[in-house]
């Protein structure tokens, strides 16, 4: 579904991603771990099409299509979703209106009519219940004054609304309390199917107990330096990253 080949990306002539290779197939869950500043969020951002980063080499393909010339909104229409590590506050636009706009823009891109208001309300109700989000919350300005955990839960609510093919969750677990983590993880699990895929960026093994990955990758210095099964996460939890850094330095 997603094929990343020798991806190099830089910002202000500073190379951050230095040759990433990654293939994610439908139905799979991949976890990406790695020290602070290793390039995890950058990778997520580049997949979602953030023009702030310049792709200098390599390619990203989604279901066989090269994404190079594809704008962030078109990627979203094609099923890419990024749950932000730091969701942006947008004062003056309510969560509901934002979701209506997002959904109808996606429909428009597919040549569909706006979703009837009744269906929209039903969908919002259904998905907010899935994530146990208070209805009052939905009329508030998007992310404005939301607590860290509320922002993350709201990201997954958006994911549930948009039903992406490939969802990248960038540290969605950090900031969530234990109950919220369970709710969010079970939400993600309910949305999972054999037709979609998830990339989890995380620092902690804990999330991976709820959403069990098929593969775990370690990113260091803009490269994937190690890949393995779910047991790799446990090993990292135990040993940290130093042994890997040394291994790659050699």
């Amino acid at each position, binding site marked *: 579904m997603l094929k990343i080949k020798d991806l190099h990306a830089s910002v202000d002539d500073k190379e951050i991603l230095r040759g990433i290779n990654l293939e994610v197939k439908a139905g799979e869950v991949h976890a990406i771990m790695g020290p602070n500043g290793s390039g995890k969020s950058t990778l997520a*951002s580049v997949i*979602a*099409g*953030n*023009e*702030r980063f310049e792709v200098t080499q390599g390619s990203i393909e989604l279901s066989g299509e090269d994404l190079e010339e594809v*704008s*962030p*909104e078109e*990627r*979203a*229409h094609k099923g*890419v*979703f*990024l749950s*932000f590590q730091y*969701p*942006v506050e*947008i*004062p*003056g*636009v309510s969560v509901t*209106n*934002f979701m*209506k*706009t*997002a*959904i*109808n*823009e*996606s429909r428009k*891109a597919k040549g569909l009519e*706006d979703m009837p208001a009744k269906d929209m309300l039903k969908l919002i109700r259904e998905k907010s219940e899935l994530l146990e989000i208070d209805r009052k919350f939905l009329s508030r*300005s998007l992310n404005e004054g939301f607590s860290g955990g509320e922002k993350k839960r709201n990201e997954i609510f*958006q994911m549930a609304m*948009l039903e992406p093919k490939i969802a990248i969750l960038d540290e969605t677990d950090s900031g969530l309390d234990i109950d919220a983590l369970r709710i969010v993880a079970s939400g993600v699990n309910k949305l999972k199917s054999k037709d979609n895929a998830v990339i989890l960026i995380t620092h902690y093994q804990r999330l991976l107990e709820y959403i069990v990955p098929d593969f775990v990758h370690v990113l260091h210095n803009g490269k994937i330096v190690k890949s393995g099964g779910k047991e790799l996460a446990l090993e990292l939890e135990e040993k940290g990253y130093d042994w890997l850094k040394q291994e790659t330095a050699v």
Partner: protein
Amino acid sequence: MDLKDKLISSFMAFENNVDVEHPVHDVRMAAIKNFEEKGFPSKKEEAWKYTSLNSLQKIDFSIFPREENTLEYKDVKKYFLHEIDSYKIVFVDGIYSSYLSETTHDGVDICLMSAALTKPMYKPVIDVYFNKVASKDESLTTLNTAFSREGAYIYIPKNKMPKKPIEIIHFATGNEASILLQPRSLVVVEENAEVQIIERHQSLTSNDTLTNAVTEIFAAKSAIVDFYKIQNDAATASLIDNTYVDQKDKSVVNVHTFSFGGKLTRNNLNFYQNGEYIDSTMNGVTILGEKQHVDHYTLVHHMQPNCESHQDYKGIYGDSSIGVFNGKIIVDKIAQKTNAFQKNNNILISDKASINSKPQLEIFADDVKCSHGCTIGQLDEDALFYLQSRGIPKKEARALLMYAFANNVLESVRIPELKTRINKLIAKKLGVNLGFDL
């Protein structure tokens, strides 16, 4: 002949058409004298540093409309807030249009300045209020005072509130070349009374028009006044709007200025707090493009203790448009416990657009809370990417962010239909159809 000379020599002709025995005429004569001395303000004056009236003075404006021009309601309906019922005071080329208007004397007076300045029954009010808060030495105000004859006259007695909002619309047809209009309005809201007014200047011509308006607003004890100015005029229309507000104890006056169009607009908005526990609010949304120029020049004079003032001006500037915000706050020594807040936030969406923003604080009391903040920025790229990543195209995402940016100023609009209308104007101005009902 330049415009100043033309105006001064027209004054004599003007005198043939007004009652020179009326005490108001002494006021006019003093005013023309002041204007003759001062003339039009130039860029050398600090207050006019960023706005030049030179090119306007070169236009050969017709000063008195020669004939009565009529308009069909269906052709101008869209300029009215037609979704709701309202009183209407409508002028066409400076002349009252009874056909388009709906005035009343039912418990309140919503009618014409020309009547108020001539009929004896209005004399007590005119004696007390006319030209009492308007400046007697600012040249453009005195120019208006000199030629004051027609405009809106609104008198709301104690404890009264008109049944519906009042719309004041000044149309310029331009049927006779370029035209200069000088409406003069008076709004008196007595103790515990309330009024909502929407005002609009609308040119219907590609000829140049210049409006030099003066409005005096008096809010007595505990009175509430909401005044909405809609400035979405044609590209050939210029406006100098001079508004003076006098407030007494516990009164609340909110002036909203929506500047979306016109060629050159200067808003001189002056608040004088003549009492305690007064609340004055000035909110503005400015969205400009092309070569439009808007200059907001505000003054709040805190003259008594325990009062508040709030200013929130938001501006979005595209193309080669120019914005100016100059917010002056004076807090007299006696005006302890004053809260004065001022915000001016701007977004430049083009390299060629510019904004000059300047707070001017003169604070002589020591126990006051004053804050002012001015920001000039571009749209937040991270926010833009966030919206795009949810499938919202860049253009709509930009519009949504700009809409959101201006939105909080609209929250204080207390006529829902007007709010909807302004929302639509903003969406239209930004060139997009947002995916939800505004």
